């Protein structure tokens, strides 16, 4: 990075822009990921076929599974940028008020806005678990990478309700994170009118609800026996 760009990125507004752009990349990925998951409602074969197809995107230009690796590198970079900007802004905020108030009215902002930082930590921990569970298969009861639908169904079997519960908690945390995060990203990227504010908040709410419903449908359907 040249000096001028670095000067911009190191300001509070510049860091917010990094957070917003990386956040948008991650939300777009989530929407694609969620849509793919819903394939399980068609049939397990359709889901397995979709999972295999993901590895063949870009062929023959890209060798087998290269697309997936490129996507993973982009996502990893986005996650690192997101966490870097969040951490450095959180530290600056902490330093900005060295002496606390003896009497402080509870912050009125939404629950979602107040839980961004800890919510983010929960989401990171979940993602680590989730990758070890359904990507690498280490924590999965079956862990057969050639039959992803089988892994999924074994994972959320009724007897393993605690796994489902953990997923539910994580997805709800994510939904709250998005409810404030999407609005905040739009604002950071320049949403500037009061009517636009209502619209941006509505968009954020819709994204949060769609993501929550879409991601919860699969594990809940398996645990309740809707999908076998």
């Amino acid at each position, binding site marked *: 990075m040249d000096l001028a760009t670095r000067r911009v990125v190191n300001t509070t507004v510049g*860091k917010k822009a990094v957070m917003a752009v990386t956040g948008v990349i991650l939300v777009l990925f989530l929407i694609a990921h969620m849509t793919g998951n819903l394939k399980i409602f068609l049939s397990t074969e359709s889901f397995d076929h979709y999972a295999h197809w993901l590895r063949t995107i870009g062929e023959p230009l890209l060798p087998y599974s290269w697309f997936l690796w490129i996507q993973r590198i982009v996502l990893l970079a986005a996650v690192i940028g997101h966490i870097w900007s969040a951490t450095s802004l959180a530290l*600056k*905020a902490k330093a900005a008020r060295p002496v606390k108030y003896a009497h402080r009215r509870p912050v009125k902002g939404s629950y979602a806005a107040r839980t961004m930082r800890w919510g983010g930590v929960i989401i990171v921990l979940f993602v680590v678990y989730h990758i070890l569970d359904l990507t690498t298969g280490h924590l999965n009861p079956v862990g057969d990478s050639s039959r992803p639908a089988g892994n999924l169904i074994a994972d959320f079997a009724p007897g393993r309700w605690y796994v489902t519960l953990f997923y539910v908690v994580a997805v709800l945390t994510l939904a709250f994170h998005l409810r404030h995060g999407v609005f905040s990203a739009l604002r950071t990227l320049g949403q*500037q009118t009061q009517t636009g504010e209502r619209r941006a908040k509505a968009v954020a709410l819709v994204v949060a609800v769609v993501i929550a419903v879409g991601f919860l449908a699969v594990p809940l359907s398996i645990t309740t026996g809707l999908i076998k």
Partner: protein
Amino acid sequence: MNLTLRIWRQHGPEEKGRMVKYRVEDVSPDMSFLEMLDMLNEELTLAGDEPVAFDHDCREGICGMCSLMINGSAHGPERATTTCQLHMRHFNDGDTIDIEPWRARAFPVVKDLVVDRSSFDRIIQAGGYISAPTGSAPDAHATPVPKADADAAFEAATCIGCGACVAACPNGSGMLFTAAKVTHLGLLPQGQPERDERVLNMIHAHDDAGFGGCTNTGECHEVCPKGIPLASIGRLNRDFLKASRSISR
């Protein structure tokens, strides 16, 4: 009415402070909050004690000098009201009221409830002005301004720079103040020549002063005595990103 006050007392910038309890009696509900404090100070002076130092000037809600965190709310419990315009009828007989100074690294305590807000002046010096030849007033219609822009600029211009936004912000951010100035000047034709430079310099001055970043929580707008819209921060962000692109070109 009779009240118990718990007030932050601190002899000087380097001194350690603490909350001290006082009783005030026969407070009239028609008094302003500052008049109630004047009454306490009179009693303290007569008793040979040091009066409580607090900032004030116009007492009309227009200068931005008064401050005070009252029961954990900047400028007290009433919306869109400065401390000087807050009346005691909003409190009840027997109440205990906590009074603290604005808390922020960029607003160090000078004495008791008085804080040094010159970090706001530094933000203004960095770009909160226009460079135009003065002289005789130009004709009112010489530079047309669309009505909507004039209204929005005026709304932002009502900011009195009191610092309540910083005091209330969970991140100790001065973004609403900075956004009000950027909006006010950036919407008017006279503010255009310095528009890019202004926003960049003001943000650097803001960050250098030790203010935190904005998380769009909206506490600032809740306590702002002038109700500066939160959306003005979006305008600041947009101007900042645009200006950054044009200087890197």
